[in-house]
């Protein structure tokens, strides 16, 4: 279950070592924008050691690496991949070939370290107009890609427009990303809401993203994590309905009925699949937190 992804600067030990207790489903240890060029080496070694010596039991680890048009990305992968983070987040991914290049290099590293091929997965960061247009091809480029993430800040710069709270300027990109990811059968994550002090704004932005079909949302502030988790969790009503669906299926089977209705509505395959997803997420939330808030 990955609803929230919290960015933590890769060269800041004070934040990284607390990453496990901030409530986020994933933390993104950032080697890219949060780290100055002079400190890339330090951050890379710090993140590597963090993965080597610290246990993160309450969250998944994602490492954001520098883009393939920089001199850093291979060094990033050399240090990080052998420590088996859950995901690598390549940046400024604009086409499937970008991912294939990264995939091939990761395979070399995995082979060199006696790891099974495809041990470490990818969540490409799509933050260019070209990337948005190629989203489906990127999603389908290799088996390593298990999710995609939309980066609104760099995207709006590339689109020559201003980033706003309402986000009309990225509405096409959001829909296109969701459609591409869902067509490819992978998860998709929305861009962070960058006003750390706007508690109402983050909720509205989360609800918009959820209504569009996003799986979850990234955050640049621990303050936003609880709202993201709440909005992207099923409601009590969703959970009750999901269990009712399976109860109705069971009853129909016992009675030998083919067609099943619940509250006057036919239960078809998409409803069953949705109910299955809701129950799976609910059970994971119960396992982690004891129940829904």
């Amino acid at each position, binding site marked *: 279950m990955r609803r929230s992804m919290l960015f933590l600067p890769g060269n*800041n*030990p*004070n934040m990284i*070592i607390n990453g496990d207790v901030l409530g986020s489903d994933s933390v993104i240890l950032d080697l890219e924008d949060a780290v100055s060029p002079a400190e890339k*080496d*330090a951050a890379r070694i710090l993140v590597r*050691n*963090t993965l080597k*010596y610290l246990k993160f039991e309450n969250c998944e680890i994602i490492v954001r690496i520098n883009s393939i048009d920089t001199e850093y990305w291979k060094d990033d992968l050399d240090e990080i991949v052998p420590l088996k983070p859950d995901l690598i987040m390549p940046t400024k991914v604009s086409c499937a070939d970008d991912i294939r290049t990264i995939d091939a290099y990761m395979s070399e590293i995995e082979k060199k370290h006696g790891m099974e091929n495809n041990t470490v997965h990818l969540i490409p960061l799509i933050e260019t107009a070209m990337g948005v247009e190629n989203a489906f091809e990127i999603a389908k480029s290799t088996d390593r890609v298990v999710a995609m993430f939309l980066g609104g800040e760099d995207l709006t710069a590339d689109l020559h427009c201003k980033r706003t709270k309402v986000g009309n300027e990225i509405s096409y990109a959001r829909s296109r990303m969701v459609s591409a990811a869902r067509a490819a059968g992978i998860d998709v994550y929305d861009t962070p809401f960058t006003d750390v002090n706007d508690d109402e704004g983050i909720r509205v932005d989360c609800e918009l993203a959820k209504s569009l079909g996003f799986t979850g949302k990234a955050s640049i502030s621990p303050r936003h994590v609880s709202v993201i988790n709440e909005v992207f969790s099923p409601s009590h009503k969703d959970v009750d309905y999901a269990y009712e669906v399976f109860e109705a299926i069971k009853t129909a089977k016992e009675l030998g009925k083919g067609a099943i209705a619940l509250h006057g509505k036919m239960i078809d395959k998409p409803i069953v699949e949705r109910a299955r997803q809701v129950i799976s997420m609910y059970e994971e939330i119960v396992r982690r937190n004891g129940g829904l808030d």
Partner: protein
Amino acid sequence: MNKIISSASAGTLESSDVYIEVEPSENNEVSVESVVLKQFGDSIVKTAESVLDELDIKNAKVHIIDKGALDCVIRARLETALRRAEKENK
């Protein structure tokens, strides 16, 4: 054996971090400043010596200013400083 050939530093003086300076020397020498020197001074020195061993460096004078860093952070900062010191200063 690897050799350091210049002075270098890594880390910061922020909480949970450590600032480390290294310079070439005849032998390895490690000194520590820390608010928890009494409790953890020996452990910090041992960690530093272990990193020097792992990197096979025998000519580094290491000065550590600790701000409550975990062992893995001390290791990372020392490795960074030593790798920087293996190159000529620009």
